[in-house]
Every structure is written in structure tokens, then in C-alpha cells.
């Protein structure tokens, strides 16, 4: 960085602050004008327990218009604070959360007033977690891969191949756990291609990822037409995992049904999330992976096998993404259809970058995407006068705003995407 670069950097920082602040104020104005002034008279009802629950929590009623005004005021205040008062990173992140929460609350109040049955918060949160599973697993795969210095745009392809293989294996052998294993291995297979071409043949990794996605889409599409359509019954009709309620924990009001009453995939996700977070940041192995991703030459000097570590991380990532893919077929849809991953791999990639290449950050981002997806489907069932296509746009617009303004300049692992060549 020379002195010449500084002016641009400074300008960028000011611009970004203004973008963030104006986004906050914009959200606030939408809260007030959109949801407050146009709110129907009455209370919005929110339900916090399911039918037949052992312990029930009373419903919550909020006056729609008043709630929207309060939410809007909070958002605008946060925006103004952002412009005039220099704040630290923690406050910045909290303020993003507050503004988003206020927006969603105002939106829900506005949408829910006058509905015959209260809006089930439990279902909304359950759906959020379900929608987030492939995103979280995809982002974890990306995290493992990129922390070791290999850019992974092929998450989409790994999900797709995992979904495809899981459906076939589970259907053919009639055993779901085999589907899970084979799906995971299929993800690793594509990861192996990624690793060999990126590490051994030094192919540009961004390009490589996109090409592998096309390859996975083409291959699964072709085999679907060729084999799965004619042999639908033997090859593409797996059963799906059923929810398993964890005893005791599953009975806790609100938290229980959301967190501890789901398919095995959610529990696998918990475990993998913890393993990756702890593994990367608290173990010797993780330190090595990160060293290889930040400064491979230094790592090599102290005796870490750079290429071996990279192969290992990329393959591990593939296994994780393959499970995420398996979820799409044997965890939720029940059969494979072409392009079933429908861009989730790219969203997972965005979540990874959004979450600054950390498992927990990626988790937060993935939950946000999952929530907007779920919100869209909930709102479309209660006949909100917003077209569902516009709602579908929301997570993507949010990502652009976030990447452009809210998150600030993210920094990838220093050697991410750079092949290591011993000269």
C-alpha cells in the first residue's frame, strides 16, 4: 500500500458509512410509511407454542401501527447515530441486527393484522432452520476450503452432486444412511476434482469453480434424463428422514420444537458447526490450515506440508457440502430433480464472505438468508399484497447492500486462490 492509495481508501470508508446510514434510514422510513401508515387497525397475533405442546406459552398481541412507528423510529435513530457518532465494530454489528429485527417485526405486524389465526413463530423459526441447513453446510465447506487457501465457488456443484448421489443410493439400496454417506462422498468427489485441478494443475480457482458447477449441472442433468426418468421407481424414489424429537430438550417451550425436534440433518449441522469452529480456531490442525491459507511459504518453512494440508481441507469441505446436498433430496424434497440446488451454493458462498470466513459468521448470514426465504413462503400463504417475486428478491438485495455497505471491507485469507509453487 503506497501513499497514493490512501485517498481512495478514505473516500471508500466515508462512502460506505453513508451507504450504511442511508440504508438504515431507508428501512426506518419503510417501517413508518409503508407498514405504519398503511396498517390495518388492530393487533397482530403471534403464537409461540404448537398445538398439543406440554407447556404452552400465551399468544402475544401487538398493535400494528404503533409497533411500526416505534420500529421506524429506532431504525432512523440508528442511521443518524451511524453518521454523526463514530462507533466500534461491535455496536455496528448490533445496530445492523436491531434495524433488521425492527424491519421484520414491523413487516410481520403489518401483514398479520386481521388474520383469523395467529402467526406461528415456531413454524417460522423451524422453517428458517430447515432452509438454512444446506446454506450452513455449504458455507462450512467453503470455510474449510478457503481457510486453507483454495477458493471454492464449486459449492453449488458439490451440493448438486451430493443431492443426486444421495437420492440414487438411498433409493437403490433402500437405506437412508447409505444415501447420506454416498451423498457426502459425492461432494468429496467434486472437491477432489477441485483440489487436483487447483493444486496440481494450478487452474485459476474462480474460473475452475464456475466450470465445475457447469459440469455438475450438466452431468446430473444428463444422467437424470438418461437414467432417473426411465427408472424413476428404483433410482429416484428414496424415502426421507423423519423428524426425531430429542427427549427432554424437545419439550422446552419455544426452543424445544425449534431446535430439538427436527431431522438428523439439523443435528449433524450442529455437530459439524462446532467441530469446524473448534477445529479451525482451537486445535493444532486448525492453526496449520489457517497458516497454509495465510502464508504458505512461512508454513512450509516450519515444516507444515502445504499441499497435503490443502488437499485434506478441500476434501473435508467436500464431505460437508455433500451432506448439505443429501439434505436437499433425502432430507426434504424426497427425490432428485435437475438443478435442485437452485443457486443455494452461491448463496452459501455469499454467506461465507458475509460472515468473514468464520463458521459462526457464516452461520449468522446463512440464518438470515434462510429466514428471508421462509418469510417469503409464510407471507405468500397469508395473502400479503406484496408480490412473492419481490419478496424473493429481498435476500439478494440485502446481500448487495451488506457487501457494499454494512459489513465493511472483508478480508479473505491472504493466500486464498493463490497456488503454492515451490520454486
Amino acid at each position, binding site marked *: 500500500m503506497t501513499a497514493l492509495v490512501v485517498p481512495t481508501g478514505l473516500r471508500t470508508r466515508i462512502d460506505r458509512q453513508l451507504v450504511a446510514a442511508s440504508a438504515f434510514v431507508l428501512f426506518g422510513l419503510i417501517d413508518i410509511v409503508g407498514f405504519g401508515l398503511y396498517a390495518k387497525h388492530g393487533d397482530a397475533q403471534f403464537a409461540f407454542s404448537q398445538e398439543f405442546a406440554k407447556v404452552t406459552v400465551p399468544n402475544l398481541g401487538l398493535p400494528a401501527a404503533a409497533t411500526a412507528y416505534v420500529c421506524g423510529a429506532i431504525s432512523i435513530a440508528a442511521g443518524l447515530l451511524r453518521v454523526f457518532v463514530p462507533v466500534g465494530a461491535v455496536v455496528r454489528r448490533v445496530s445492523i441486527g436491531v434495524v433488521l429485527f425492527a424491519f421484520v417485526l414491523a413487516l410481520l405486524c403489518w401483514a398479520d393484522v386481521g388474520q383469523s389465526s395467529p402467526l406461528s413463530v415456531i413454524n417460522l423459526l423451524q422453517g428458517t432452520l430447515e432452509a438454512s441447513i444446506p446454506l450452513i453446510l455449504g458455507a462450512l465447506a467453503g470455510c474449510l476450503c478457503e481457510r486453507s487457501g483454495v477458493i471454492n465457488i464449486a459449492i453449488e456443484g458439490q451440493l448438486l452432486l451430493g443431492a443426486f448421489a444421495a437420492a440414487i443410493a438411498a433409493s437403490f439400496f433402500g437405506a437412508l444412511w447409505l444415501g447420506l454417506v454416498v451423498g457426502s462422498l459425492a461432494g468429496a468427489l467434486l472437491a477432489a476434482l477441485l483440489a487436483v485441478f487447483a493444486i496440481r494443475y494450478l487452474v485459476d480457482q474462480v474460473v475452475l469453480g464456475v466450470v465445475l458447477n457447469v459440469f455438475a449441472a450438466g452431468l446430473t442433468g444428463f444422467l437424470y434424463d438418461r437414467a432417473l426418468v426411465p427408472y424413476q421407481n428404483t433410482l429416484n424414489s428414496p424415502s426421507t428422514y423423519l423428524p426425531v424429537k430429542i427427549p427432554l430438550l424437545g419439550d422446552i417451550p419455544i426452543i424445544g420444537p425449534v431446535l430439538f425436534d427436527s431431522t438428523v440433518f439439523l443435528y449433524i449441522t450442529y455437530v459439524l458447526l462446532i467441530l469446524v469452529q473448534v477445529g479451525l480456531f482451537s486445535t493444532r490442525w486448525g492453526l496449520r490450515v489457517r497458516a497454509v491459507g495465510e502464508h504458505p511459504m512461512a508454513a512450509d518453512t516450519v515444516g507444515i506440508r502445504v499441499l497435503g494440508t490443502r488437499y485434506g481441507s478441500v476434501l473435508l469441505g467436500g464431505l460437508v457440502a455433500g451432506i448439505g446436498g443429501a439434505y436437499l433430496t433425502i432430507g426434504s424434497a424426497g427425490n432428485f430433480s435437475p438443478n435442485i440446488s437452485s443457486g443455494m451454493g452461491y448463496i452459501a458462498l455469499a454467506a461465507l464472505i458475509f460472515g468473514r470466513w468464520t463458521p459462526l459468521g457464516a452461520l449468522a448470514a446463512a440464518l438470515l438468508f434462510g429466514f428471508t426465504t421462509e418469510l417469503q413462503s409464510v407471507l405468500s400463504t397469508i395473502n400479503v399484497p406484496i408480490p412473492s417475486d419481490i419478496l424473493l428478491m429481498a435476500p439478494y438485495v440485502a446481500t448487495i447492500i451488506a457487501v457494499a455497505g454494512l459489513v465493511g471491507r472483508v478480508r*479473505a485469507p491472504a493466500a486464498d486462490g493463490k497456488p503454492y509453487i515451490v520454486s
Partner: protein
Amino acid sequence: MSETPEAAGPLVPAVPTSSPAAGRVLPPDAAEASPAGPGDGRERPRLGRLLIESIVEGNSIVVTILAIVVAIVVGGLLIAFTDPVVLHVWGSFFAEPGTAIATAWDSAFGAYNAMFQGSIFNPHTVAAIFQQKSLGVAFSDGTVSQVFNPISETAVNATPLILAGLAVALAFRAGLFNIGAQSQFIGGALVCTYLGFGVSLPPVIHTVVCVLGAFVGGAVIGWLTGLLKATTGAHEVIVTIMLNYVLADFLSWILGTSAMQRPGRSDLISPLIASDAHLPLLLGSHLRVNAGFLLALACAVGVWWLLTRSTVGFEFRSVGANASASRSAGMSVSRTWILVMLISGGLAGLAASTVIQGTDFTLTFQSYGTYGIDAITVALLGRARPLGVVLAALLFGALHAGGIAMQASTSTPETITTVIQSLVVLFVAAPPLIRGLFRMHKATGRDAGQSLAKGWNG
């Protein structure tokens, strides 16, 4: 960061003249490379060495051609060994190995032959001419046109690929990875279609206005990406991916509103554009090839001129090679990024114009197809050079046209073309693999430094 314009310069654009070869030469390998012929493994390197000694040592043209060959062989194997008939015969391989190999060969050859007939030349069409009463009748009822139909279809399929491929290639040269050709295509398509049915203008002017509108529509979307990158540092890969979804959702929304939906229809389709706005057909009413193809070629020349002969183009390449050095040299990197994305988006918008005004005449919620991703593969195969892009687009255009014909006449699904397409690009991107496969010895530093896209920190 590693390459300089000089390093990238001498690379001759790939010349995939072999698109006709698709049906002809390759299936032998497909059958031979099967487990039945283990002796071939030893034959090949010697052939490879001869090839190398006669031509220069494994340069990019040779690598590209070999990559296409390998991809087609792998594709052939995939076609043969997913064919139920072949699998059935191979079940009793040891009883009749000859029949088994012959069946596999027939399956792959049949598919590629159908592809060839759908994209280059179909002998049956010539035979049909002689069945007409006279040559005059043959001309008037379109039998003669039928002979050129495969080539015409190849050109029609290649046209949007050339333009979208140029869009991605131009961005590559400035160090930007434009995954958003899809969103820019939609932006162009929206403006183009609206002008096509919404306003009435005299014939030629209407066509030109719609084409320009498509350019502007795409350019606005591209400009937005460049602007965000230049002012806030948002990575263009993320922004363009997100814009793809935003625009696709926007498209399916607006096609359902009274502004764009065809009256009387409940599905998502726009009104037909006025016939005044159509791009003129080039070879008579029986063939679909239209002025869009010439427009695409003209744009290729334009991009070539821009990149190699203009100051602006020099700045593009310079920023692409080394942004901080360019900044130190007094160039405005931000301005370059914005301008590149604007032109790039405009080119992708023009691709939409050739589809809407050239062949479809209407806009649906999936008009954008897979042009966005195909454009990337075209740009990569063409090594981000205008001539390379044109040739790569013709190859993939032929694959598409042939794939549709193949699906119609054989049991092989058209999706195999996507597999072949991705394999070609994969192998082209990995020269060391191809060299290793054919036992070529040439390791220059260029293989490693041939980076087109920048990583996250780049």
C-alpha cells in the same frame, strides 16, 4: 497480479476448427479408449510426440484442439455407457466382446453423427433436392434452404453466445469476473421488448432503437456493478451473482403485471414485438439466421479494436494486469472498472436483442436460459480474445444446435452438450493435464500465470 499484457499478448487465439470433426473423427477413440483396448495407452504418446515435433511444442492451439478431442471422447464414453442397450450387451461382454464394443461404438457414433447433421451438414437434405420436380421448385419450396439449415441454426445459436462471451471476455481483460451476463441480458431484454411492442416507429428505425435500448438496458445493470465495486469495494463476483437473482425475480414479477404481460394470457409472456422491430433475415424466409449474427461479428471487431488499438482499451488491459501499478501511473482505476462493466453489460444486453428481435420475438420468464454461464465458458475457451470468443461461440453454438437435433433423432438427451462444454473448458484451463495426458514436454511459466480472474483480495 502476475501476468502482464505482454505475457498475455502472444497467445494466439484458439482455433477450434474442429466443430465438424465432432461427428467424424472422434468416436473411434471413444470405443478404443474403453477397457477393451488396453494396448492404446502405449500407442498414444508416440503419436503425441510426433504431433509435438511437427507442430511447435504443445502451444495453446494444440492444447485447445486436444482438449476438445479429450472432452468429446469422454462425452462419447458417457453417451455409450449410459445407454441401456449398450449396458445390456456389456452385461455379457465376455461371451461376445466384439458385439459389445460395436454396440458402444454405434451408440456414441450415432449420437455424434446426429449432432453433426444438426449443426453442420445433413446429406439427406441434398438427396431431398433431387426428389423435387425441378431445381426451381426446390428453391421455392425451401428444399434448398434445408441444406443450409444446420449451418444457419449453428449461427443462430452462436450469435447470443458471441455477444455474451465478449461481455465476459472484456471484463476478464480488465481483471473483472462478470458472472452477471444473465442479469445484464435480462436488463437488455426488458428494455428491448418494451420498445418492441410498446412504441411504433418506422421499420428500420424501430429495429435500431430496440437494439440500442437493449444495449442501454444491459449497460445500466453492468454499470451498477462497476459503480458498487469502484465506490464501496463490493466484490463484483458477489454483486453480479446476486443481481442475477434480483433481475430474474424482477422479470418474472413484471411479466405478470399489466405493463408487460400479453393480454389474454395467464402465463408469464410478453406481447409479440412489432414486425418492424425484427432483425432482418439474411438467407431467405426458410432460415432463421439474421442480422444479429453480423451485429455479433461487428461487435467482436469493435471489442478487438477497443482492446488493442485504443487508449481506453490499453487502460482496461493495464488495470487488469496490475491495478495498483496502473493507479500509480495515473490511470483512474475506478473509472476503468465502471466503464468496463458498462460496456460489458451493454454487450450482454445486445445478446438479448439478438434473441428477442432475431428469433423469439417475445420475452418469457426464462428467455435468459443459460446464456450467463455459457458466456463464461465461451470467454474462457476463447481465452478472453475477440477472435477466440467468436470461434468458441461457433463451437458451442454448433453443440447446442446439434444437441437439439440429436435429442430429436436419438435417445441421447441434449444435456450431454453441457457436459462436453464444461469438460472442454476444464481441459483448456489445465494445459499441464493435457500435456501430461499426451506426454508432451513443455512447461513454461505461462501455465501458472494465466490467471484471468482475481481472487477475493485481488
